[in-house]
């Protein structure tokens, strides 16, 4: 699913530098990315998502070399094949949970909303336990409910790759476990690949492999 070779990235010369000589993540694998703050975890995720372009090296997602794609192609690939989950949930306050879940279809010119999407929406909501919360606004939800909604939004397009950046970072211990269980459950149901950045080593158990960023960055922290 993911193949990284000789990835070389820096925001500007003399600043933080990230170098990954080789990284392979098989389809359906669960990869945890750990490291200190500023070690480049989020940067690596952004490069995998096609949001950032490396200075050198190859990043291939589902056999597509991201460096060979245009910005537009990367966006299309991102919105249709990659689901993103953020530490701060990043739900839009003025949209209901339902509309937040359908956001990718509203902001994309390539995705088409149809009955399948509606079916998928209802199923995701049921499976993640937020079916009763669909008409509420984010400020009416608890932290855990918000993150579950964010997980549903990331999965609504049936992506093959989930990139989660500290999805449990803002949750209390009980919710951390619950949300992680939901996330892993959905990843399994969708047969997706999961790359999750986390500070919390207690959550590493279910993961197939762990990538420690200490090995891959240099220069002053960002």
């Amino acid at each position, binding site marked *: 699913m993911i193949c990284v070779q000789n990835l070389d990235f820096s925001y500007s010369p003399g600043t933080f530098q990230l170098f990954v000589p080789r990284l392979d993540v098989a389809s359906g694998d669960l990869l945890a990315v750990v490291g200190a703050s500023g070690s480049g975890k989020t940067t690596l995720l952004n490069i995998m998502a096609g949001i950032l372009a490396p200075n050198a090296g190859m990043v291939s997602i589902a056999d597509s070399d991201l460096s060979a794609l245009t910005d537009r192609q990367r966006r299309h690939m991102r919105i249709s094949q990659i689901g993103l989950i953020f530490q701060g949930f990043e739900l839009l306050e*003025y949209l209901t949970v339902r509309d937040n879940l359908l956001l990718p279809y*509203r902001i*994309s010119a390539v995705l088409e909303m149809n009955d399948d999407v509606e079916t998928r929406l209802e199923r995701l909501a049921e499976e993640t336990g937020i079916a009763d919360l669909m008409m509420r606004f984010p400020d009416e939800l608890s932290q855990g409910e918000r993150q579950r909604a964010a997980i549903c939004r990331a999965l609504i397009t049936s992506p093959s790759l989930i990139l989660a950046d500290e999805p449990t970072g803002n949750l209390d211990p009980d919710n951390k476990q619950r949300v992680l269980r939901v996330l892993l459950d959905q990843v399994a149901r969708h047969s997706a690949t999961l790359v999750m950045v986390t500070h919390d080593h207690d959550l590493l158990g279910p993961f197939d492999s762990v990538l420690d960023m200490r090995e891959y960055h240099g220069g002053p922290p960002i």
Partner: protein
Amino acid sequence: MKSIIFLALRYLAYYRWKTGVLVAAISVILFLPLSLEYVLDHGTERLRARAQATPLVLGAPGSAIELMLSTLYFESGNLAPLKYALIDEIHETMLGQAIPLQVKYRVGDFPVVGTSPDYFDFRDLKITNGRRLALAGEAVLGALSAKELGISPGDSVITTPDTVFDVTGTYPLKLKVVGLLQPTGTQDDYAVFVDVKTSWIIGGTGHGHEDLARPEASGSVLKRNGKDLVANASVAAFREVTPDNMADFHFHGGVADFPLSAIIVVPRDVKAGVLLEGRYQNPNSSVRVVLPSVVIDNLLNTVLIVRQYVLAAITFVGVATLATVALVFSLSIQLRRSEITTMMRIGAAPMRIGVILGTEILLVLAASVFVAGIAMVVVNAWGDALFGWILMAGNL
């Protein structure tokens, strides 16, 4: 496009107070100059129409504007009176029709307009309830004066005395209302029309009282010399004209000398109008002739200059308001930075996000235009009443 409009509407609906304030502010900025233009255009059109429909006006030398206000808008001022003899003088020339106007008295806030039947034909005033004037002591009310006073045919109104304490001033006369006029959208709607002779009675030039020749009236006789009597101040004048006392009403002095505020002259044709104008243009004459359309045009030119200043002020305020609105939008976008970043990270194109934000702005503008439009529709629908109120409130 549906999704873009959907997202824009959702945002505006969620932050409804902010949206409402923006729409209100922009609506006001759009409405103000439009309504000002409408009121001024409507008003100037009405002023011009009434002036253009009045060919010539004769009055005593003095302010032409004051003469116009008296003649067209029944504003009683301090004009010196004309003599009624001018009416016959004009008719004898056979150059046009002379319509007398005596505007000096009031029933509450409404002017009493003494005139002749020709005024009603001239202004195409039609009766909607009751009948036309027939005799002195009767009154016919304009649509709005009747409504404001709550008067119907058969009721009476009483003229307002000059002052309560001036014993030498005019005394109130009770007028019998015999008819109400159809609305015209002009100052005629606010008038109380009477025979010019009735206005002379109100002013004391004519009156009715008991027959002084009768023995019972001896207490009112100051001096008797054969058939010539001098009455004293105890003679009580009748305060209304009735079928029983009408025969006792009379005038003192010659009608030719009785006063008028103004005379509307309707020339027979263009040439007659020029001849009439020339006849009374002598600066030494005790009578002056005025073309209402010229006077009103001069007056409106001044109004239009003021309009330019007002529009400039509104424009300045409008620009400031729109700049503030633009700042609000700009700050709003700044505050939504993380939301925009999220959408881009999920995979939205910058162009699409720009279109979403732009659509929000356009929807606010569209709503503002709609609200301003509704307000203009209301002003248009109620414009006549609004302008009539302005005329009434401003006595213009």
